[in-house]
Structures are given as structure tokens and as C-alpha cells.
């Protein structure tokens, strides 16, 4: 309750929430506003926004409705963001928890692997994945999740390292509680809030990664992705710059919304910082 009040009282957090709801609304209503396939031919190519009332945001170089692509693209971006983030967080929590709680050689091995993932530029690794497994939307999503887990793993590990030596955990051990129960029922709930907050960062990065991949035409060409549209607009950038500009704004707004919500959650969860 107190948490909710704290959240609602912060203007940036509220702006973020409203923006996010708008994007979600676009994703949900895409089929209703634009029932046709957004990638199908809709009219003359390169109609400027506002020039034809049928195409509010104009058409791209192959005559497809930009507004339809923006609405359907919201769906793709959010879906990729949520699924990739879930994969990254789940992997990260399990690996971080095991490393942090057990320490010793388990920790050494897991941390070496984590380091390897962090040393290799994640976009480069993403390119390798795409080169090997192809670029349909499912592969791309899983690949983004698979390159994003090291940060939450480190975060979870750090939380576990401090929590496992806290006296309440020692108290659980002195009453004879088993390891599994201590990890999942006692420590994890206390370690979770910062990791959950961090999920917003991963989601923001996941959306940016996918759009960058799509911009390079290495993502699924058969879905209405904002990045695809920006890449397409690049060919007509010098005059019809709006083709690239509009989807870019959509990405910016979505990532901004996710970040603002994440920061709002963080501030609401850390009352000490909120006072500042």
C-alpha cells in the first residue's frame, strides 16, 4: 500500500506508466484499428504524413501504411522485450543464486562463464547467434535473452553474498532448515526486489537490441518491427526522412516508458533514496 502511494506520487513514474499504457494500448488495439496485414501494400509509396487522411503517418517506400506498422510493431517490441527479459531474469536468478549461496568452486565456475559472456560484446554474440541459427523472430528473442542474463546473475549473486551471512539466514540454519528452502523461501524474496527493478533495464536494452538487429536487416523480415522500418527508410533518408523518424520516436517512447517505470519502482522500493 505504502509502496503504491509512493509510486503514484512521483511525477516521472506516472508519466512513464501513462506512456507504457499507451504503448500497450497500441499493441492490443492493433488488430482492431488495422485489421489488414501491416506489411501488405496499402497505397502509393512515400506519401508524406498528413497528405492523405487515409494514411495518418504516411506510407513507406513500398507503399505500406506506416501507422499500421507502428501499431503492430508495438506488439512485436513489447513481446520481444517481455519474453527476452523473462528468459534473462530466470537464467540470471538461478545462476546468481547458486553461485552466491554455495560459493567455492560452484561460484568460480559460474562466474568464469558469466565473465566470458560479459567480455564478449553482447551485440557481437547476438550476430553470431543469428549467423548460426537464422533470424526468425523466436530465435532472435531467445538469443537476446541468452546474451542478457549476466547482469541479473551478478546482481543476484551480490545480493545472495550479503544475505547469506545475515543473521536471519544463520538463524534458519541453526533451526535445521535445508538449503533449498533457505535459498528459495528465505533469501530469494529478499534478493528479488533489486533484480525485478533491473528487469526494466534489461527490457529497455532488449527492445533496443532487437531494433538495432532489425535495422541491420538481420532480424525477421516477416514481422512489422520498428527497426525494420527504420532500416527501410534509410534508403530514402535524404528526402523522405519521416519514414525512419517516426518508428524511431516509437522506440524512444517505449524505452523511455519502461525506464521511467523501472526507476519509479526503484525509488518506491528504496524509501531512503526517495527522500532526496
Amino acid at each position, binding site marked *: 500500500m505504502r509502496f503504491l502511494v509512493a509510486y503514484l506520487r512521483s511525477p516521472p513514474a506516472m508519466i512513464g506508466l501513462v506512456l507504457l499504457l499507451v504503448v500497450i494500448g497500441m499493441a492490443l488495439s492493433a488488430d482492431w484499428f488495422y485489421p489488414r496485414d501491416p506489411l501488405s501494400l496499402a497505397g502509393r509509396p512515400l506519401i508524406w504524413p498528413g497528405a492523405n487522411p487515409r494514411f495518418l503517418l504516411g506510407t513507406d517506400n513500398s507503399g505500406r501504411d506506416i501507422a499500421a506498422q507502428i501499431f503492430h510493431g508495438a506488439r512485436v517490441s513489447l513481446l520481444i522485450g517481455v519474453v527476452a527479459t523473462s528468459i534473462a531474469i530466470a537464467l540470471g536468478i538461478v545462476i546468481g543464486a547458486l553461485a552466491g549461496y554455495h560459493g567455492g568452486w560452484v561460484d568460480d565456475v559460474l562466474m568464469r562463464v558469466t565473465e566470458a559472456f560479459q567480455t564478449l560484446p553482447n551485440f557481437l554474440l547476438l550476430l553470431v547467434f543469428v549467423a548460426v541459427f537464422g533470424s526468425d523472430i523466436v530465435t532472435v528473442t531467445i538469443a537476446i535473452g541468452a546474451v542478457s542474463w549476466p547482469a541479473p546473475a551478478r546482481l543476484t549473486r551480490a545480493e545472495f553474498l550479503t544475505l547469506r551471512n*545475515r*543473521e536471519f539466514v544463520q538463524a534458519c540454519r541453526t533451526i535445521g532448515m535445508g538449503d533449498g528452502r533457505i535459498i528459495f523461501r528465505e533469501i530469494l524474496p529478499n534478493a528479488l526486489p533489486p533484480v525485478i527493478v533491473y528487469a526494466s533495464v534489461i527490457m529497455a536494452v532488449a527492445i533496443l537490441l532487437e531494433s538495432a538487429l532489425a535495422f541491420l536487416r538481420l532480424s525477421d523480415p516477416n514481422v512489422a518491427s520498428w527497426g525494420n522500418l527504420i532500416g527501410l527508410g534509410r534508403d530514402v533518408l535524404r528526402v523522405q526522412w519521416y519514414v525512419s523518424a517516426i518508428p524511431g520516436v516509437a522506440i524512444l517512447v517505449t524505452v523511455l516508458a519502461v525506464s521511467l517505470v523501472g526507476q519509479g519502482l526503484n525509488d518506491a522500493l528504496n524509501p531512503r533514496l526517495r527522500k532526496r
Partner: protein
Amino acid sequence: MSAVLSLQGLTVALPKGADRAHALENVSLDLNANEILCVVGESGSGKSMTASAIMRLLPPGVRISGGAVRFEGKDLATADERTMRAIRGAGIAMVFQEPMTALNPLRTVGDQIGEMFRIHAGLPAKQIAARTLALLEEVRIPHPAQAARAYPHELSGGQRQRAMIAMALALDPKVLIADEPTTALDVTTQAQILHLIRDLQRRKGTAVLFITHDFGVVAEIADRVAVMQHGVVVEQGAASQVLHAPQHPYTKALVAAVPPLHAPPPRPLSDDTILRIESVQKTYRTGGFLGRGARVTHAVRGVTLDLPRGATLGVVGESGSGKSTLARCIVRLIEPDGGAIRLEGTNLLALRRREMRQAARRVQMVFQDPFGSLNPRRRAGELVAQGPIVHGASPAAAMARAKELFALVGLDPAATERYPHEFSGGQRQRIGLARALALEPEVLVADEPVSALDVSVQAQVLRLLAELRERLNLSIVFITHDLRVAAQVCDIVAVMKEGEVVEHGPIGRVFTDPQHAYTQALLASVPGRDFAPAA
């Protein structure tokens, strides 16, 4: 004698939404030259806020809303920031509680002391270096030239506090404010620092405002005493008068709660040994990569002790003596490298993990930190019921038992529904006790169970512990750094130093006639050792 620093009806307002409107209310104090005035009170009494208000270094949102602070003909409550800056450090200097964090970790000690001269006096660098060295010599820091070049982490806690004092006294301030300067230190170091402060104060005629929660320290060092409660000065007067003939009921209660260093008459002890600690060893190896730079710490080396049934065995020592490690070895939170822990003949260290979990119910532990030892996300009742549930009790039965235990430790059984943060420190320690008792243990290992509590709460918890010991026929291993507390609760005492027991025996004998030089030094260091409240 006229006052150097004079607080006249000083009132400090807290921001809206705080648990009270004023941090300080109408505080009037006079600090004279060449005296030590102790401001004493429990947590939340506003004693530290008084210091911050004088220095005008209040936390954001907190402001002086009335009264005056007279110093050298100025009113510091209304002085502008420039005037304040000139006074801070030069006119009124301050020493803080945590020498660990009060110095900038990235700059050398000498550099930080020299900064005093750079900002207030503008001396040439060579002279600054010489003055800094002289100061470090004056506070009797070992190897002063080396200490000046050292970074804070390279010095011990006591040395850091000496450096802080050197810094504070650099410009011969008229007033020195010391905010719990010895609270974070071990008792022998504390005695040295108190002695140093007293000595320097006498020599320089400085007026010292000494803030503390410890009546022992007051008895040791104070010329006059002011007692604070909830932001109000309830009593002030000469030290001897306040300590021995307190007038205000709150002062009376506080003074009465101070445990005397003399042990009460011994209780008869059983011949039957319930717990035997046999040459227990624990060694830590740290920082070694491929065997280079490895350091070996012998935390516990070959400790052997007996705990008779129904008795309390005190383990006392300073930080790093290995007493906490020993406590954790007994319950196998730390695996010892060697030795045996025999509970009525069964060696706990020989048990496998599963068997140990079963045996765990017979030896339970009470922890130091009333905040950290309770999972903030579980209700108080659940925390107490957890143990029996792990050992097979039904949740309903365990919950009913939890309510009984709450009553036993003096808590409202209805409070089982509340979360830990809704309890005070003393109440939390009672929850911790109830949790340990839920498994009906024979032996209780208590690791500094009252160190984090205010003196009046501490007295209540100790009384409760003594009562439960009688009623449940508990045998207790009681770890503490506080010799006064040890004197009151222990039957036998073991003194530890650097992982070894240097002396042990009945508490009355050890405390009145210590044999080992370290025990003697330890007892001699207890501040105000002769002070005992009039019964």
C-alpha cells in the same frame, strides 16, 4: 566562571511527518573552559542532534527553530554560513564515533590533518608538515612520521581515532565536541583514548562536550553531566551528584540499569557437564591466489571449556579474539577444523549434515543484531513457528506454541501477526529468544544478545534471560564484550585473546583476583570500574 559555549533554549524542529515535532526542545546548557561536560542519553534522546545543531551541520529538512547558541559573542543559531565555516574546526572542533568512516579513505592521514592548517591558517607547506607531525606525536600515535603518510585503512581503529583527535585539536579550538568517540572501540583502546582526551583537555584548557550513552564513560571522564530524554534536558549537575544522587526519575532508572562490575554471590553449580568444548580449532586462509600473499588467521586455537548443566558460561574478549567464531562453531554455522563439541557425550562435529539438523534443536542460538536476525518478510509468529514446523510439527500446533512463547518472553500473543519492523529493538530480541526457545533446547548460545540495546532495555532482557534460565533449566553460553554484563549473568567466565582462552574460572574469582596479565588489563580498562549505582 563564564561559559565558553552557551545553549539558550535551543529548539530544533524536525520535518513534517517525523515521529515527533522537535528533535530538541528548549535545551539550555553552559559549557565552561577547562571542563568536560557529558551529555548522556539513550538512542533518540537528541544528544547527537545537539552536537549537529551547535556546528550547524543538521541533516536536510531539520532546522533550528528557536533559542540561541552563544560562542565568542556571536549567536551561532543565526550566524551566516561564512562565519560558521570560520568557526568550524578553528573555534569548535569535532570528533566522531566511527573512526573507520570519518576519514576520507583516498587521502593520507597527514594530508587530511594538514588540511586544517591550509584552510584556516594558510601556512607554507613545510610548516604544515612539521605541525602535523607534532600533532601526531602529541596524540601518541606510534611511528608518527609513518602514520602521516599512511592511508586510513592502514591504521587500527584506535590509531585512526587518535588521528581524528589530532585533526580536531590542530588549531587549538576553544571547544571540542566528541560524539561517542570511543563507542566503536575495544575496551582497552577506549581506556587509552579516554585517557588521552582527558589529558589533552587538562593541558590545553579546552572545553569538551562529550556525548555518550555509557554511564561508565561518564563516571570515568565527566566533570558535569546533562541527562537527555526525548530532546529535553531532564537533569544536569556535577558528575558526582548526578551519578550518586540522581533527582529525576528517568535519571534514577538509567543509573539503576547500569550493571555493576562486581559479580553477585555465586550460585551452586551442578557437577554434571552438559556441553564440553574440546580443543576446538578454526583457521582462516584468505587472499591467496596460487599461494601468493596468502594470510592465515587462527580464529580459534585449541579452546577447551566445560559448561555445567544449568549454568551460564561467559566468553569475553575484544573484537578479533575469536569469541563469536567459537559460538558459531558450537552450532556448526562454522565448521571447525578440529576438536569436538560434546553434548552429553555426543560429538556434534562427527554428525552428518542430516543428523546435525536433527540435533540442532538441542542447541539453539540467539543473535546480536535485533534488525538483521529476523527475516523482514515474515510475520513474527511465523519466525517462531518455523523451527517446530521444520522438525515436523503441524503449522497450527506450531502457531499455538508461538503464541505461548510470545507470552513467555513478555510479548503480546496477538503480536504474532505483525512484521519485525513493527517492533522495537528490545522486542525483536525477545522474538529472537522465543524462536530459539521454540525448539525446547537444552543449551542456548547467545552471541552478544544485548549489545545493540539501550541500557534500560538491556537490563530488562537480561532479567528475562535469567528468569528463563531458572524456569526452563537452560544452560547458556553467553558471548559478550561487555564485562559489566558478564559480571551480572555468568557463573563461569572464559577470557579469550587472539583465539585462545587465557584464563577461566568462576566469575567472582576471575573478576576480583585475575591471574593473567591480559585479564587484569581488561578489567582495569572498564570505564568507571568503581562506579556502581547505589542499590
